[in-house]
């Protein structure tokens, strides 16, 4: 196993694939898996929490918006540890076959408004280092999120003192 440590051994870090039905009851299982994998990659507790939260928010959105809360859709989560320019990170891909949307229309709303809803995309963009939505050939959406281990984490516009918001690992 020691052969796997370090950046050059990228070929030895293939992906993990989790497929769940579009049902909220399976969110906890995916959170557990993502948290465990991020921990094993040596992510700090804060960064683990951020990966877990972003994945949960993204999956919830697929269930709500992609599958309109119908339980018979499938969602695939692909987790791939990466190493880019000496930085260790985790790529989280979320793929669905639900209704697709123009990626430019997936955005957070103005937070000054006190109302429930419209928070998920803001959270995802705040806590992850890269976030990219794409339409999939054949229907459905692909979301690609990247989190680096030494990430400066939450975007500067988020307050910095909290557990999730702070990126100091």
């Amino acid at each position: 196993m020691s052969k796997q440590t370090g950046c050059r051994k990228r070929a030895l870090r293939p992906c993990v694939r989790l497929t769940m039905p579009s049902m909220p009851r399976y969110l906890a299982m995916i959170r557990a898996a993502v948290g465990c994998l991020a921990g094993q990659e040596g992510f700090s507790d804060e960064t683990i929490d951020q990966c877990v939260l972003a994945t949960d928010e993204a999956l919830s959105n697929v269930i709500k918006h992609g599958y309109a809360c119908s339980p018979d859709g499938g969602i695939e989560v692909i987790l791939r540890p990466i190493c880019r320019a000496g930085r260790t990170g985790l790529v989280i891909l979320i793929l669905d076959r639900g209704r697709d949307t123009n990626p430019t229309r997936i955005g957070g709303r103005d937070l000054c408004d006190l109302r429930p809803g419209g928070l998920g995309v803001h959270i995802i963009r705040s806590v992850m280092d890269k976030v990219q939505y794409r339409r999939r050939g054949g229907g459905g959406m692909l979301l690609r999120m990247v989190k680096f281990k030494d990430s400066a984490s939450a975007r500067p516009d988020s307050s910095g003192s909290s557990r999730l918001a702070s990126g100091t690992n």
Partner: protein
Amino acid sequence: MAHEQVPETVKDVQVADGTAVVTLTGEVDMSNSPGVHQTLVEILQNRPDRLLIDLGEVSYMDSSGVGVLVDALRRMRVTGGKLGLIAVTPRVKSVLQITKLDQFFEIFPTRDEAMAR
């Protein structure tokens, strides 16, 4: 909600002297936040002066849970009541901070401090 042996997210509800104290537990996500919402709406139908939500045992909360808190706050404001959160764990607090909602909630470190007000 999800299954009979899974601990319910709403662990306890106490109402006395116009103050309702709701204790939540576990992980609040899209699978159980509708149930929490339902409970809070029912409690608020009796128009308490104050709603306190104890989050000390909530180890995780996503935006669906935060949305439930925001909805309760808006309903309390309509009836002129107050809403306080008790024992918000760092992880839950972060979610409130990221969504800039921490400013809207009165947060008490302990239940005693909340009750003393």
